[in-house]
């Protein structure tokens, strides 16, 4: 066994794949996670995973998948890494198949593939409408196998606090807190992989799990890691609005033939099919959402006068509802107490995914040497808008690349980092102590509500410079009010309030990055749509790079890798991709 040890932060698909890839190279691996690995947010993914591996999908192949991904992302994704991901996809799905993921099959027992939004090809492997759960478990089981063999150690219920940097600014481990006891300790490592997922909580209610606060990425940004393309936030067209969260109804419903409509003049108006004849209801998500927004908000045709449309499954065969859409149909029945087989579902758009994230190079290394990132917390694979079915893929592919890169890096990481680690522990203990003793007047949960409202109103589907200015002002105000928070729970262990106050600090930093990036990008591209600048402007065909300063983010722009496919305007014919 090698002496190199790798620390993985985050136990979702990307983190687990990174852990497996590193362990397979005989590294010793520690995995740190807020929750037991099996409860990570990847478990919520419904629709499926893309791989151009379907013999029945005539004309499809990794190159077509690549083109769909690049066009769907409005050319903002780096083409080299995306091409490698699309080429790796069939092998990844075969790997999951060997791990035992319960993918849907053809009657004779081969993998089955479905259509998904943003594509014309049947390219998405799936397990009912709980694909994320099935794939996460398959990986979790492999990690458990390594754990039983003593090659991976799990630290579940630990929260990442900061990276430990040496005198050269390289990452030599991390500092984390055991949530149950409040103990802070250092985890020395030859290389660190962060795979901490998305940041839906910035928008209040989203389709994300509650732990998706972006806090870890925000903390690293505060430590100097560059954050890229933050302004690109995907709003999913269809979710069940609830008082506590927006529950996703994935594109798999549309893929299986569900139709979106609103009542108009006493008739059903299938407005997506009318506007996008080539893709119909499977048009790329950003275009679908803007159309829904326009029909509901500008034309006033939303169901019940709200931002709501009908998602109609009533004409689908029973077998499709109960098998191919298993999970999704039950979810709706449970929470809405109506049967989608009989009554059309009522759905709203909801914040779903961050295309932006920590900047990484093609080996998945962030701007901090020795610190790697994979999964939704990095920016590499989706450009300005993510294609349905590509998130599970980017997690697994990115995790594999990151795990292997981290292993190779750790081999070269020598010398003692002990003093730096201890200094970081002292710094973090002081920060925890100062948060725990906050006795101001503000309520952190109400501040969070205000943040979510401002972000949802001004920084989602339709943006304007005036609205973004208002959001930036609000974020500044909330940052100041954060200093005056009261933490009403004095406990050292399992103190969820103190933990949330810390996370909120990092959330405000990331909100600032997102809103400022949107303010400065004077064009419309992918999910970023600005009324004042409704056209794509290729002078902005640039990666947004945000660096932390105490006075707010400093934004610069970097080149995009366009080596294979020259930008073309998006037309309806290729509205999806």
């Amino acid at each position, binding site marked *: 066994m090698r002496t190199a040890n790798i620390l993985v932060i985050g136990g979702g698909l990307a983190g687990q794949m990174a852990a497996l890839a590193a362990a397979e190279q005989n590294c010793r691996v520690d995995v740190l996670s807020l929750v037991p690995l099996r409860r990570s947010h990847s478990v919520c993914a419904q629709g499926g995973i893309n791989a151009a591996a379907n013999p029945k999908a005539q004309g499809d192949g990794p190159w077509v998948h690549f083109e769909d991904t690049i066009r769907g992302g409005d050319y903002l994704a780096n083409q080299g890494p995306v091409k490698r991901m699309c080429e790796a996809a069939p092998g990844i799905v*075969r790997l999951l198949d060997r791990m035992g993921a319960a993918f849907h*099959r053809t009657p004779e027992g081969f993998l089955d593939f479905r259509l998904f939004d943003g594509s014309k090809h049947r390219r998405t492997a799936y397990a009912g409408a709980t694909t994320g759960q099935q794939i996460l478990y398959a990986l979790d089981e492999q990690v*458990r196998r390594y754990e039983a063999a003593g090659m991976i150690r799990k630290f579940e219920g630990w929260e990442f606090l900061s990276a430990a940097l040496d005198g050269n600014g390289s990452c030599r481990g991390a500092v984390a807190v055991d949530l149950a006891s409040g103990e802070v300790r250092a985890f020395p490592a030859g290389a660190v992989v962060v795979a901490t997922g998305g940041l839906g909580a910035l928008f209040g209610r989203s389709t994300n*799990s509650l732990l998706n606060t972006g806090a870890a990425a925000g903390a690293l940004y505060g430590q100097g890691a560059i954050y890229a393309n933050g302004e690109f936030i995907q709003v999913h067209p269809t979710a069940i609005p609830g008082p506590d969260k927006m529950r996703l109804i994935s594109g798999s419903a549309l893929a299986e033939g569900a139709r979106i409509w609103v009542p108009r003049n006493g008739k059903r108006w299938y407005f997506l099919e009318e506007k996008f004849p080539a893709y119909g209801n499977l048009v790329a998500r950003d275009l679908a959402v803007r159309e829904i927004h326009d029909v509901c908000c500008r034309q006033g045709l939303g169901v019940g006068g709200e931002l709501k449309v009908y998602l109609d499954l009533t004409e689908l065969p029973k077998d499709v509802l109960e098998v191919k859409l298993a999970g999704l149909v039950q979810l709706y029945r449970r929470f809405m107490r109506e049967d989608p087989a009989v009554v059309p579902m009522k759905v709203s758009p909801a914040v779903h995914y961050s295309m932006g994230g920590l900047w990484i190079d093609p080996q998945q290394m962030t701007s901090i040497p020795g610190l790697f990132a994979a999964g939704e917390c990095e920016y590499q694979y989706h450009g300005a808008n993510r294609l349905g079915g590509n998130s599970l893929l980017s997690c697994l592919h990115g995790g594999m690349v990151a795990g292997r890169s981290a292993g190779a890096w750790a081999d070269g990481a020598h010398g003692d980092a002990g003093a730096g680690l201890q200094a970081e522990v002292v710094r973090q203990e002081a920060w925890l102590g100062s948060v725990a003793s906050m006795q101001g007047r503000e309520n952190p949960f109400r501040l969070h509500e205000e943040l979510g409202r401002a972000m949802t109103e001004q920084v989602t589907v339709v943006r304007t410079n005036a609205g973004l200015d208002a959001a930036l002002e609000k974020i500044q105000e909330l940052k100041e009010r954060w200093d005056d928070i009261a933490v009403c729970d004095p406990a050292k262990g*399992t103190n969820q309030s103190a933990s949330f106050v810390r996370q909120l600090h990092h959330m405000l930093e990331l909100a600032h990055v997102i809103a400022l990036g949107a303010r400065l990008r004077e064009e419309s591209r992918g999910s970023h749509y600005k009324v004042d600048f409704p056209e794509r402007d290729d002078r902005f065909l640039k990666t947004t790079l945000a660096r932390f300063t105490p006075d707010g983010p400093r934004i610069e722009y970097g080149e995009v890798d366009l080596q294979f496919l020259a930008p073309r305007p998006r037309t309806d014919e290729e509205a999806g991709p």
Partner: protein
Amino acid sequence: MTSPTAEIRLEVRRQDGPGARARWEEFLVPGTPGMNVISCLRWIQANPVDSGGRPTTPVAWDCNCLEEVCGACSMLINGRARQACTALVDELQQPVRLEPLSKFPLVRVLVVDRAVLFEHLKRILGWISIDGLHDVGPGPRVPEKQRRFGYRLSGCMTCGSCVEACPQVSARTRFMGPAALAQAVYFNLSPLGRIDAEERLEAVMGEGGISQCANAQNCDNACPRGVPLTTAIARLNRATSWHLVREWLAR
């Protein structure tokens, strides 16, 4: 049934640590349509005041996805183990009584330590022994009909509801409970998982294994995801019996 906007009366069994004294605390939460138990707890978190107007500390509890797929938010709600996210308040009798699961070590208030559930998955070799991450081609063909049964078993989110409901699970019996047994069946069904089938059968025939099941069948009703637990246990019973016969013949 109550009107969705009425005030909700909530009683929480509070014990702030393993050794601490337990007491009941009552809260009044303004109701909103579609509200679940989690929304009530989050309201209390933002407004930590009991029904008598006395300031208190927020209730600690576990939750994450709020879609009944992560398995985090198990607790006793009006005496029954279930997920708090799908516990819609207007379907519950009031006062709504919340308690931590009783068969796991308490951490704080409603948070318990369910690590033992994952240890059981280790015991039953809950994995497929693949050779590595490299692309050596597809997995074996599986008829769709067989996959469907496997898919129902693999929907288990390790929430612990079945373990809580099972009268056989106690410190004395050390019974691993229905979930882990069903997972053993799941892996033994899979064409590649079968490689370790005999070791898995040996594991469930050991201490705290299938012999502790007394067929109370509470687990099927307790499972929020409809995992066919008793069907799986019956299959496992047959498989272990055959395994014994084979062992005996081979002597």
